């Protein structure tokens, strides 16, 4: 989330697409209800089915699962054709005026630079035309045309690209009636005014597609066109599904990152040494130019005194990926299925329920020599060897089920969707012999290290040199101090990541959290001042990285001169009379002031800060056009899901050209499986249900696995309310209850009736509330950038039992 | 030994009821009293808290109430009908047969209860008071049984009926109670009517008593028989 949960009350319009906020983030509706009551805000819900969110919407539009880009492309087209974009914002704060190089081209669904052999694009072809720079170290600058008239400026390319997304075609693809499309577009485009803001709220309904990343980009582009980024009540709100999925991502429990969103190193020439790595990973412009300070400080935190300039601060003790390999979820399970992976530990993760094509993933686990499962309950993962149909005697895996304790039995912090890190105070002693994961990890690694004691082998030095002394008993505060980091010259805790250095004199385990523990007795995650300063900002409550900022890109809330675009939407603004930078008295008075911590050096003159309001971008502007970072191309283009009932109406390219097809033989055809299926979550259960399906109160609230289908489909198939049905896909078959509901309606897709159904994916064979897992049916195919599996759109058939 | 004929006079006593009639009366009496006591605990538990305790608590009392409801509803009447058809016939005939004498008798009952003399016509086997008591017993019994069944299995009946069952049960039980007061008083405490108790207990009642109180019957059955 660029803004926060409490900020939702400042919105004038919330577009809920790819999420079911009322159901899965019910508290968001506390704030949306407030916005509606107090500001007359509108709530729009776009979803294949009529959800609990839809029940409270002003406008509900059905949309076939997997057609977000068509839907949003249509909105971009509508906004541009009807001049509903906010020109001042677009010209000043986005890259609309940038001139794109001549290498860029787009024909029949394909951008220029594609290599069909590797299924990859050469992104260089999409570069901007750059201003020549005399100083090679200076921040790069693109050529621009602020009049937006150059035929190759981003704005005109954008206009051209989305001119194909007319209402008729979009309606034919999405199955949304034309008048509903227009109603949504018109209502949401209202926010493209200085005194209005709109927020797009999305979740896994957006990302779990082969085009998931581009779906998100299409939202961001609409937000940029309407000037909704960096203002209260605006932003792109990724509603994160777990209490600390933000934190676990920040700390890079992902193969491709190091803590703080730094790319993980590869075993190749680019990353052969620390110097080469830093050179490669440090851009010339934007805030990321500080990357070396973050990396070196992290290495110093991890390897302590053993990290010296001579040994590249222990850089080589980090694992280097095979640059040709992908280690993401699907690849991981393919590797396990093929026998490469021999040992696995899971920390509250439950693949036999949550993995795509989970039958295969559970089968893959049989190849493990050992499995360590850390959980509160006996999950389907822990019990995979006795799952229905398995023969325990033939499964040679050694399984350890380590009892972890719950959130109320331990202390520590979690970071919510708004990057707010809040402290949890332990309330009760851990149950039985269960332990906090912190203790488990601490003790486990100590045991492993014990076994390597005295080793001189190079490969073991990382283990032996890792800083691992947090006292006994270990406390979260001791770890948090290491994360925050210290100035080694003074021994004091760091107060801000601005002070980090790349010479080994500072440490910080994760730079974005630097400054959260500024003093030995002050863990800002414990701050509990419940007062609202203004505009939904509660600065005294806990800590939001970076530097306790609550609204990212907040420079955009004021015009280039630093004056708020509107009184109602002001967050930070230039006060020429405020005391200036004490370090630079020659600059005189003047500073940005307001309700939030500025996204930039607040003493920078407004014109300067306006030049780069998107500080993490190399070129400083909001990216309507993504010359880098997106594998499929600079503009989101609609491709059909891997399994789709129709031919792509926008081009001859059916599937996202950069995705990897893992199991071509497991693709279902629309003849055999004519029904579009999606998966979803219920308010009453959490993810794979290991926690909630084991709690009597919640188990009774939703005890059964079911499939939702329309009355029309039920009539066609002769299915009665509440009976058992078999649902099948090219991957498998499950038996579930039929929930016949008015909330699903058949859609008119490409001139014919297509049925759509959906089911919750919380269920498995363990716990009190049991049921067959929806993911038996989902495919092993992922997004072109993130490899997030396409859980949300696949084909099935259904018949009564 | 063969049963004597009804109306047989022996040692100054008249054979008034056969053992089945006697049994039916007492099964009914005992079960009714049991239901009355256990019912009181449920009807007025606040006032009858000590009683509930005596009986082993409200829950045990509730069970007992149902236990006694079975003989109450299922035994007395069938017993009489199947095993003493004669007695049943007489009882039914008498209870539904009212003539001027009965009415007159009924009217003169009150002074009689108070021990005052009234010049009353002669009665058949059952006098008017007993007839009235019988009628009330039969109809409240049906009412109590039917409403009791409904209250026992409320799920099986429409809600309006269940709701109605409560006042019906209460009304029937209270009506029966009021009659019962008089009935017990006469049979146990009234100096002159007490003799009737012997009749319904042993089957044999004092001949003089019978002659006085059931003149018509005495003349018809005993004297002629």
């Amino acid at each position, binding site marked *: 989330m660029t803004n926060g949960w409490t900020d939702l009350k400042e919105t004038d319009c919330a577009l809920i697409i790819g999420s079911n906020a009322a159901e899965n983030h019910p508290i968001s509706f506390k704030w949306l209800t407030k916005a509606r009551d107090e500001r007359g805000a509108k709530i729009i819900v776009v979803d294949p089915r009529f959800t609990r969110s839809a029940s409270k919407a002003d406008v509900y539009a059905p949309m076939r699962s997997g057609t977000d880009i068509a839907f949003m492309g249509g909105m971009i087209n509508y906004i541009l054709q009807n001049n509903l974009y906010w020109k001042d914002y677009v010209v000043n704060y986005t890259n609309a005026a940038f001139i794109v190089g001549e290498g860029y081209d787009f024909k029949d669904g394909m951008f220029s630079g594609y290599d069909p052999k590797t299924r990859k694009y050469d992104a260089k072809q999409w570069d901007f035309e750059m201003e020549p720079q005399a100083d090679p170290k200076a921040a790069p600058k693109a050529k621009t045309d602020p009049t937006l008239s150059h035929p190759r400026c981003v704005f005109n390319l954008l206009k051209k690209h989305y001119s194909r997304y007319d209402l008729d075609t979009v309606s034919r693809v999405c199955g949304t009636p034309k008048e509903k499309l227009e109603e949504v577009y018109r209502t949401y485009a209202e926010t493209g005014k200085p005194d209005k803001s709109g927020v797009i709220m999305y979740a896994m309904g957006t990302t779990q597609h082969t085009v998931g990343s581009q779906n998100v980009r299409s939202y961001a582009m609409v937000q940029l066109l309407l000037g909704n980024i960096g203002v209260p009540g605006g932003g792109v709100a990724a509603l*994160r599904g777990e209490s600390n999925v933000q*934190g676990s991502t920040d700390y890079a429990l992902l193969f491709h990152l190091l803590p703080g969103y730094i790319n993980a190193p590869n075993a190749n020439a680019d990353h052969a040494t620390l110097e080469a790595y830093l050179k490669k990973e440090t851009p010339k412009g934007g805030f990321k130019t500080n990357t070396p300070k973050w990396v070196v400080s992290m290495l110093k935190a991890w390897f302590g005194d053993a990290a010296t300039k001579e040994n590249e601060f222990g850089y080589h003790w980090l694992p280097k990926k095979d640059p040709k390999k992908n280690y993401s979820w699907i690849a991981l399970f393919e590797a396990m299925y093929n026998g490469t992976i021999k040992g696995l530990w899971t920390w509250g993760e439950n693949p036999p329920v949550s993995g795509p094509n989970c039958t295969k993933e559970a089968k893959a686990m049989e190849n493990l020599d050992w499995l360590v499962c850390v959980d509160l309950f006996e999950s389907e993962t822990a019990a995979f060897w006795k799952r229905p149909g398995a023969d325990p005697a033939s499964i040679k895996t050694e399984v350890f089920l380590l009892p972890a304790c719950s959130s109320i039995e331990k202390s520590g912090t979690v970071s919510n969707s708004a990057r707010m890190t*809040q402290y949890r105070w332990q309330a009760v002693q851990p149950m039985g012999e269960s332990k906090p994961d912190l203790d488990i990890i601490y003790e486990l690694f100590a045991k492993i290290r014990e076994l390597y004691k005295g080793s001189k082998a190079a490969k073991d030095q990382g283990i032996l040199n890792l800083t691992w002394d947090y006292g006994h008993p270990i406390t979260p505060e001791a770890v948090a101090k290491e994360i925050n980091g210290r100035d080694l010259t003074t021994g004091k805790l760091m107060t801000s990541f601005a002070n980090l250095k790349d010479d080994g004199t500072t440490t910080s385990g994760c730079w974005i959290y630097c400054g959260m523990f500024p003093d030995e007795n002050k863990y800002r995650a414990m701050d509990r001042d419940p007062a609202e300063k203004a505009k939904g900002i509660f600065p005294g409550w806990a800590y939001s990285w970076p530097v306790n900022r609550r609204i990212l890109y907040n420079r955009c809330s004021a015009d280039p001169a630093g004056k708020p675009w509107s009184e109602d939407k002001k967050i930070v603004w230039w006060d020429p009379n405020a005391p200036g930078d004490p370090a630079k008295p020659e600059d005189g008075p003047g500073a940005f002031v307001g309700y939030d911590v500025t996204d930039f050096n607040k003493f920078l003159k407004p014109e300067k800060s306006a030049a780069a309001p998107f500080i993490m971008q190399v070129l400083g502007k909001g990216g309507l056009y993504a010359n880098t970072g997106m594998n499929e191309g600079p503009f989101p283009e609609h491709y059909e899901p891997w399994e789709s009932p129709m031919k792509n109406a926008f081009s001859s390219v059916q599937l996202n050209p950069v995705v990897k097809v893992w199991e071509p033989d497991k693709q279902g055809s629309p003849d055999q499986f004519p029904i579009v299926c999606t998966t979803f979550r219920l308010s009453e259960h959490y993810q794979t249900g290991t926690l909630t399906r084991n709690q009597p109160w919640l188990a009774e609230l939703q005890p059964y696995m079911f499939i939702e289908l329309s009355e029309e489909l039920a009539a066609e198939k002769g299915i009665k309310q509440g009976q058992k049905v078999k649902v099948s896909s090219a991957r498998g078959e499950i038996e579930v209850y039929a929930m016949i509901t008015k909330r699903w309606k058949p859609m008119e897709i490409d001139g014919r009736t297509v049925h759509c159904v959906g089911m919750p994916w919380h269920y498995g064979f363990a716990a009190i509330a049991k049921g067959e897992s929806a993911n038996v049916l989902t495919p092993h195919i992922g997004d072109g950038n993130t490899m997030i599996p396409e859980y949300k759109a696949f084909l099935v058939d259904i018949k009564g039992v | 030994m063969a049963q004597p004929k009804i109306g047989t006079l022996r040692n100054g006593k008249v054979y008034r009821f056969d053992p089945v009639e006697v049994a039916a009366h007492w099964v009914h009496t005992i079960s009714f009293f049991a239901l009355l006591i256990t019912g009181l605990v449920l009807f007025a538990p606040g006032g009858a808290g000590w009683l509930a305790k005596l009986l082993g608590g409200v829950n045990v009392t509730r069970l007992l109430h149902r236990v006694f409801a079975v003989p109450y509803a299922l035994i007395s009447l069938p017993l009489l009908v199947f095993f003493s058809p004669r007695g049943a016939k007489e009882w039914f005939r008498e209870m539904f047969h009212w003539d001027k004498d009965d009415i007159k008798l009924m009217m003169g009952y009150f002074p009689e209860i108070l021990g005052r003399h009234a010049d009353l016509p002669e009665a058949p086997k059952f006098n008017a008071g007993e007839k009235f008591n019988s009628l009330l017993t039969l109809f409240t019994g049906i009412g109590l049984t039917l409403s009791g069944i409904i209250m026992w299995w409320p799920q099986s009946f429409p809600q309006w009926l269940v709701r109605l069952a409560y006042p019906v049960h209460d009304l029937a039980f209270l009506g029966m109670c009021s009659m019962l007061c008089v009935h017990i008083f006469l049979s146990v405490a009234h100096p002159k009517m007490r003799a009737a108790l012997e009749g319904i207990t042993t089957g044999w009642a004092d001949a003089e008593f019978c002659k006085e109180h059931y003149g018509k019957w005495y003349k018809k059955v005993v004297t002629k028989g």
Partner: protein
Amino acid sequence: MRVTRRDFLKLSGVTAASAALSQLGFAAPAVAKVRDFKIREAKVSPTICPYCGVGCGQLVYVRDGKVVQLEGDPDNPQNQGSLCSKGAALSQVFDNPRRVTKVLYRAPGASAWEEKDWEWALERIAENVKKTRDASFIETQPDEKDPAKSYIANRTEAIASLGGASLDNEECYLLTKMNRALGIVYLEHQARI
């Protein structure tokens, strides 16, 4: 810890007052005795809901080591006292008869769990880790084009780590450090799925 708890201040005041009143015989006469106020003497700890990403505040009321009540934290700006069905039911995670409270071990081919102690289990796991790691360790990787050149790889592809989104930050950090020190690259968590 700095806990500003308007509610319990208010609460304890009211409680004391009502207790005093009832001692003086001022308890409302017409009213049935209302159930004992179960959180009267409970100790309260603020925490954050472990479910979705909203980060709602919760208050846990504990008496004699038992959770007697759990409800929304009115001070937390996210939820201001509100909780959804999951958050409001959280106390059932604790004291749940289905919780695993001992280390469980399933030997290869076995058809049932056996209880073990922590020490044994951690040692056994450590041995497994070392065995798998040492047998699969890739120290260097040759250049894609020039096989004469090679780069330090320092990884194992035989061990995988999954999960972390339900761990605390401090735990995630330790886990990321441990995984990397061991050379684990098959490293994923819930953000991917």
